[in-house]
């Protein structure tokens, strides 16, 4: 009995101390005020004054500030937009690849799988960096397009939102391909043959049979891309321009450049509230799928 208690207590205590308590601190600081002191916020907790005096000093001022300053709600909206559009584009790019993999000869599939997973083990930072050299004005893409004669002057792609989209699609593609592939691989080919025998064209059969049967993979892949992209920092700060607004970048700058901890914490709390909806939907979808399998 004692052993069981210790086994439960060790990871439990670790997560309480290093996950839940830090989050409570963020919540508390988001309700505090900015001050020129170390650490730069008031009120500091003081046992002598008691809890009620401490609580009385907390307020929602930072959250009101977030609604008043254009920067923040624009950053939230533009993060949501970038995340939604790039999730859709990743699906468009990833679906044909997953489809091709699921239809490839069986002995190729492990190799194709490995080729999809390999970039995932490679440093994220390096994969984003690779695009900096390709997309710049004198970069590989512009040189190639000018050599082809498609354009006469280099296109400005780096430091724009287009570069951010390319970077997101590139780095998150495996997260889309894998769940869609596993849904398509399980799909019973005779269903499509049946649809074709019953007079469907190939395209109609694809639309009416294949897409609905791979729905779970599409949903899982979309959440796996959307959720992390919403808080993305590295891609907008390396590939985006000064007008690329994403909330992860705003939070980073609020903390490291402006040193305004209370506002940075409030930004974090609101971002988390935004994320709760897709996360709960994702969990439900996963649970439904598990129940269906059993």
């Amino acid at each position, binding site marked *: 009995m004692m052993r069981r208690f210790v086994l439960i207590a060790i990871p439990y205590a670790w997560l309480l101390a290093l996950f839940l308590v830090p989050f409570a601190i963020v919540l508390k600081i988001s309700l505090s005020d900015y001050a020129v002191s170390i650490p730069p916020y008031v009120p500091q907790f003081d046992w002598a004054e008691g809890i009620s005096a401490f609580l009385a000093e907390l307020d929602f001022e930072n959250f009101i500030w977030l609604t008043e300053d254009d920067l923040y709600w624009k950053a939230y909206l533009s993060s949501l937009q970038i995340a939604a559009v790039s999730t859709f584009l990743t699906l468009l790019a990833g679906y044909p690849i997953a489809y091709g993999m699921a239809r490839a000869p069986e002995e190729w599939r492990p190799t194709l799988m490995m080729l999809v997973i390999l970039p995932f083990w490679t440093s994220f930072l390096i994969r984003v960096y690779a695009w900096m050299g390709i997309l710049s004005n004198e970069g590989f893409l512009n040189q190639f397009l000018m050599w082809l004669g498609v354009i006469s002057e280099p296109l400005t792609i780096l430091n724009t939102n287009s570069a951010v989209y390319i970077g997101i699609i590139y780095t998150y593609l495996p997260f889309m391909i894998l769940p869609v592939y596993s849904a398509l691989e399980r799909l019973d080919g005779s269903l499509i043959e049946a649809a074709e025998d019953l007079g469907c064209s190939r395209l109609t059969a694809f639309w009416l049979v294949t897409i609905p049967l791979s729905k779970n993979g599409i949903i899982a892949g979309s959440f796996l891309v959307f959720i992390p992209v919403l808080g993305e920092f590295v891609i907008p700060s390396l590939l985006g321009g000064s007008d690329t607004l994403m909330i992860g970048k705003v939070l980073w700058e609020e903390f490291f450049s402006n040193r305004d*901890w209370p506002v940075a914490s409030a930004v974090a709390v609101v971002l988390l509230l935004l994320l709760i909806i897709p996360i709960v939907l994702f969990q439900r979808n996963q649970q439904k799928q598990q129940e269906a399998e059993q």
Partner: protein
Amino acid sequence: MNRMTWFNAVSLTLGFAFLYIPMVILVIFSFNESKLVTVWAGFSTKWYGELLQNDAFLNAAWVTLKVAVFSSTMATVLGTIAAYVLVRGGRFMGRTLFSGMIYAPLVMPEVITGLSLLLLFIGIGLDRGVLTIVLAHTTFSMCYVSVVVSSRLVSFDRSLEEAALDLGCSPAEAFRLVTLPIIAPAVISGWLLAFTLSLDDLVIASFTSGPSATTLPIKIFSAVRLGVSPEINALSTIMISIVTVGVITASLVTKHQVARQKREEQAAVRA
């Protein structure tokens, strides 16, 4: 239905070209003579030489490696215990909160995890350095380990453990002699995942590191912010090669093991 139509062939070719051409370009230009990363000026390995003399990068690489080894090992121990408790622990008080805390860090944006841990370390007056990065990395990667290990624990036959207990093993012996060997592949892949996550992490390390400890991603990020440089290409090439060799070796080993298992099973059936 294994038709390899032209459409499938084209989409696979384009897809893998998109995934791999950027890396190939990166690797090619690490051997470029010129300082410019975009204009080819002849073959040279001088950037590798300069990289090896750059103490700042070497120190950062050493710190990163230390952090990754410590944090992934701790994460594996804690994550395996957490998985065991979740799958085999039965009911206990606060179980829902516990499983919530296991899954939440997986979807938490890195900026929030980093910010919250930093505020904790400042709050308790812990100096930021290698220790704080290790604590931070252990916390988020133990959750990945526990997900990997618990999926293995769920799928294995519990009666094996019960048989060991019936035959007189203590619970600890049953775990060591029966459970651990069976879940070992999952524990190893959990460790590898935690190790890679730690090597790779920029955001959480930036929040939780101090001036005394700079990791490689932090170093690369601050260099890359100023623009592309052939030294970074050389460094990237080294990292890509290590990962490629590792992944290919791992997949060959797995393939070999699966083949051996099949042979043994067939032999057993024949016998």
